[in-house]
């Protein structure tokens, strides 16, 4: 099989004033992912190359990079999918570069935190009183499940044109997570999140470029979540939004089957 050319962004703080590209030749094998290629480079060609990786199965979200001018997870991208043998790898745009391919995602995490991404229960107050599980219909589950797929990789933030200029724009990931919790019936904190999304750098700076959903490796579709959030906010401010019913706790049910037998204790209690 043919060899691959990896063009990799290098940048060492303190030494380089700006990033530059370096070329490596990596032998191709079936199923090789871009991450495998980078690991090959690190272990065999240049030990100083830095990049993030952990799960190598596309679920932890560490390895977001700009691969052939599109943000992708390196471990989740078999080279075969790229249809080329020259692979350009850069760190995620719109995030500061720490070193080589390692981008600083802290701004994303802080924005995510700022939208209150957790269940707020106003009525019942204490979340920690463990009374019973809540009932949830399939439809209710589906209304947010897709958005809960988010691995917080930041690819959507690298893709969004508004993020590319506006450092304060909340951005697709945080807004999507804001909506994910608003639409969960266990939550009653929609109002407070609406207020937060309503700032001059909030939800209204999304102009449906759709690049976030295009880039998202997990099918989260943040663009959809943001538009649904806008709709909820518009309806809410016109007082047309139906007040969602609070979640119903499950009632205990009567015994329907006999206990499965457990061997007697053989040690005296």
């Amino acid at each position, binding site marked *: 099989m043919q060899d691959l050319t990896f063009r990799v962004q290098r940048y060492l703080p303190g030494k380089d004033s700006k990033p530059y590209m370096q070329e490596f030749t990596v032998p191709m094998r079936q199923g090789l992912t871009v991450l495998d290629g980078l690991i090959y480079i690190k272990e065999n060609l240049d030990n100083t190359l830095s990049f993030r990786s952990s799960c190598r199965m596309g679920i932890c979200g560490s390895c977001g990079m700009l691969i052939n001018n599109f943000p992708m997870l390196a471990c989740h991208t078999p080279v075969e999918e790229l249809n080329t043998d020259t692979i350009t790898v850069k760190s995620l745009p719109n995030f500061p570069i720490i070193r080589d391919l390692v981008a600083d995602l802290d701004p994303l995490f802080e924005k995510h935190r700022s939208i209150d991404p957790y269940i707020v229960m106003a009525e019942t107050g204490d979340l920690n009183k463990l009374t019973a599980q809540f009932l949830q219909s399939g439809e209710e589950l589906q209304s947010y499940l897709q958005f809960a797929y988010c691995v917080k990789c930041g690819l959507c933030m690298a893709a969004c044109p508004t993020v590319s200029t506006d*450092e304060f724009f909340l951005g697709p990931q945080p807004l999507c997570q804001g909506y994910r919790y608003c639409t969960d019936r266990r939550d009653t904190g929609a109002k407070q999140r609406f207020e937060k999304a309503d700032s*001059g750098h909030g939800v209204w700076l999304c102009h449906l470029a759709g690049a976030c959903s295009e880039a998202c490796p997990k099918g989260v579709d943040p663009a959809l979540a943001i538009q649904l959030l806008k709709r909820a906010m518009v309806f*809410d*401010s*016109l007082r047309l939004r139906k007040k969602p019913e609070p979640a119903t706790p499950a009632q205990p049910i009567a015994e329907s089957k006999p206990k499965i037998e457990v061997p007697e204790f053989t040690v005296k209690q």
Partner: protein
Amino acid sequence: MRETKLKILQYITGIALFFFVGTHLIISHLGSEEVTEWTSVADRAANSGWLVFYIILLLFGLYHGIHGLRTIILEALPRLSVKSLDFTLVIIGLAIFGYALYIPVSAF
């Protein structure tokens, strides 16, 4: 929710502009040559129906455009203070509106 209300207005004005500007463009650019002649222009300015039409068009167009401009400025220059930006844009908007209103009123 201030931003949401402003945006709702932009949507409403957008939809309204669809008809207003549409009509205006069809009349003045696609129609016959006469519409831009002095007499017909003056006629329409004197007709209070048309006057209201133009004032609404003006208001909506200005609001819609300036709110759009505001969005773009907020994005391109995120460090700008929202308050002073809003203030400046409102002043500019009012100035243009006043000027535009003054023309038909004083010309005829």
